[in-house]
């Protein structure tokens, strides 16, 4: 296959990838979009086989590895529970990163295969591009591994900080640039290996100081990195499909990180430099005076809801942990039978990755047109009779609007306190991720329901 023809096909698959993302603008078109993505991928792979045109023994092995990888991937995709999506995505990012590193290494030791010159005489531009692709890939790999371990709970979610951390990171980052420069000047393979090695190290060091609560930002950021790594390799291979895809994924991840940061009212650098959880402990201890709370049982809650005409559900990650989403849906079904209007309010950072809560509700058969984003529903709280907060905490804290001293001041929150009455399902009065007390617990119109989210929801349904 001629180089020009294959370039045209790579361009077509790039366009199909754009359409795949475009399809996600609404649930109706999304499945079609995914299909475009699959077709784009098939075209890209087929064209590559045809343009290499080598169907010797090696081809058989390519096929075997493709099948092995495909089988593992399919198995994971069917088995993974929806609550574990953040871990899955972090794990997948690490694989893209590692694949980019492998391709960069391969191009470095055998540049003839890619038309990049010969070993020791690689074209300057290509050498820069593969260094960038390899280094960013390595950072993506080790960073995603840490994110994966933190999400899995294998590693503590607490930020790991030590003295001189920022200085060390800065030095390593500078040395990456210096090494790239030296590598280009000398073409030395030792420098190339060192460059890849310290990139793995910096990925690891960047992610360890970031706390568990910031994982939505981290995942989005690594998503972005995996895109830039792919784009870097795309320049090396002079492949349009890879360049387009890399740019798309890179900007997608960057936008998601921005949305997540905005949802927490924190600057990107503030998250990256880490140590959120560490600074909060001191403030939370000061306001520990005992204040009266009203607590109730499932019966009280059922009574309140039965007499309401509209109910807004505010789910948080705690709901997913308690596996209460199906019980919740059943409760809502019962409410709907009694002609009570029910909607769901979702905060941008509810769950552990962008849009995670929506997927969990969708899995429990909640129709997506009953689920609203913060800006869409925040004005409705004032007109609603009951707000049912289940597994959420910090995102409902009115302190974010009233107390400039608070670490979450300025963060957009759901105006739950404006409801006529608030039902707050929680196991205890303990603070949430941000480590601060929630003023909502002590409001006149709040009724605390101290119980496991799933059990409480089931009990309410029985009492309705």
């Amino acid at each position, binding site marked *: 296959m001629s180089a020009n023809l294959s370039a045209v096909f790579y361009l077509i698959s790039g366009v199909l990838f754009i359409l795949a993302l475009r399809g996600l603008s609404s649930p109706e078109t999304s499945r079609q979009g995914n299909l475009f993505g699959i077709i784009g991928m098939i075209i890209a792979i087929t064209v590559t086989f045809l343009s290499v045109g080598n169907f010797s023994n*090696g081809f058989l092995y390519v096929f075997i590895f493709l099948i092995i990888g*495909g089988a593992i991937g399919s198995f994971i995709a069917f088995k993974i529970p929806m609550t574990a999506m953040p871990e899955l995505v972090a794990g997948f990012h690490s694989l893209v990163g590692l694949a980019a590193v492998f391709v960069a290494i391969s191009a470095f030791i055998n540049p003839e295969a890619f038309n990049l010159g010969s070993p020791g005489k690689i074209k300057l531009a290509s050498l820069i591009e593969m260094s960038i692709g390899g280094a960013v890939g390595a950072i993506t790999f080790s960073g995603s591994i840490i994110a994966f371990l933190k999400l899995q709970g294998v590693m503590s979610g607490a930020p790991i900080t030590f003295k001189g951390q920022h200085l060390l990171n800065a030095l390593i980052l500078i040395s990456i640039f210096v090494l790239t420069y030296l590598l280009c000047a000398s073409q030395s393979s030792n420098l190339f290996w060192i460059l890849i090695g310290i990139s793995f190290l910096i990925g690891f060091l960047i992610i360890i100081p970031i706390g568990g609560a910031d994982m939505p930002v981290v995942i989005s950021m690594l998503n972005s990195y995996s895109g830039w790594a792919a784009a870097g390799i795309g320049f*090396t291979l002079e492949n349009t499909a890879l360049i387009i895809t890399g740019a798309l994924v890179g900007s997608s991840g960057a936008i998601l990180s921005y949305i997540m940061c905005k949802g927490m009212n924190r600057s990107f650098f503030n998250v990256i430099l880490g140590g959120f959880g560490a600074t909060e402990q001191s403030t939370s201890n000061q306001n520990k005076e005992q204040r009266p709370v009203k607590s109730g049982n499932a019966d009280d809650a059922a009574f309140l809801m039965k007499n309401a005409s509209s109910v807004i559900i505010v789910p948080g990650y705690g709901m997913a942990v308690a596996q209460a989403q199906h019980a919740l849906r059943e409760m809502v079904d019962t409410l709907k039978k009694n002609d009570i209007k029910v909607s769901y309010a979702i905060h941008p950072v509810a769950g552990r990755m962008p849009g995670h809560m929506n997927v969990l509700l969708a899995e429990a058969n909640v129709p997506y*047109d009953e689920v609203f984003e913060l800006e869409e529903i925040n004005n409705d709280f004032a007109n609603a009779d009951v707000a049912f907060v289940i597994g959420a905490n910090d995102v409902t804290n009115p302190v974010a609007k009233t107390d400039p001293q608070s670490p979450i001041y300025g963060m957009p929150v759901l105006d739950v306190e404006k409801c006529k009455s608030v039902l707050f399902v929680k196991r205890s009065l303990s603070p949430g991720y941000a480590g601060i007390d929630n003023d909502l617990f002590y409001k006149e119109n709040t009724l605390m329901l101290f119980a496991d989210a799933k059990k409480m929801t089931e009990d309410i349904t029985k009492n309705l």
Partner: protein
Amino acid sequence: MEIDPFIFRLSIFILSIFIGYYVVWSVTPSLHTPLMSVTNAISSVIIVGAIIAALASNEGNIFSSSSLFGYFAIALAAINIFGGFLVTQRMLAMYKKKKKDK
């Protein structure tokens, strides 16, 4: 004077960033998780590089070190391609069901 082909690729890259920017902002927030899994899947188009690495220049030796890196990269990218697209499909199918209930 002839323009370096690199400039063309750079143009494609820059314009794609802009396309990505506008397309991603139009993605509805409720589909942000599928967005991440599908971007994951498509970024594995890096498999193209892996295939070239694995197949090129084998001159009788199909297990040269550069080919081996290629094979491993193929397996990694394949996990992502199949896993990414299928899990996206699985998630999007759940959004579909609601539509039918209505």
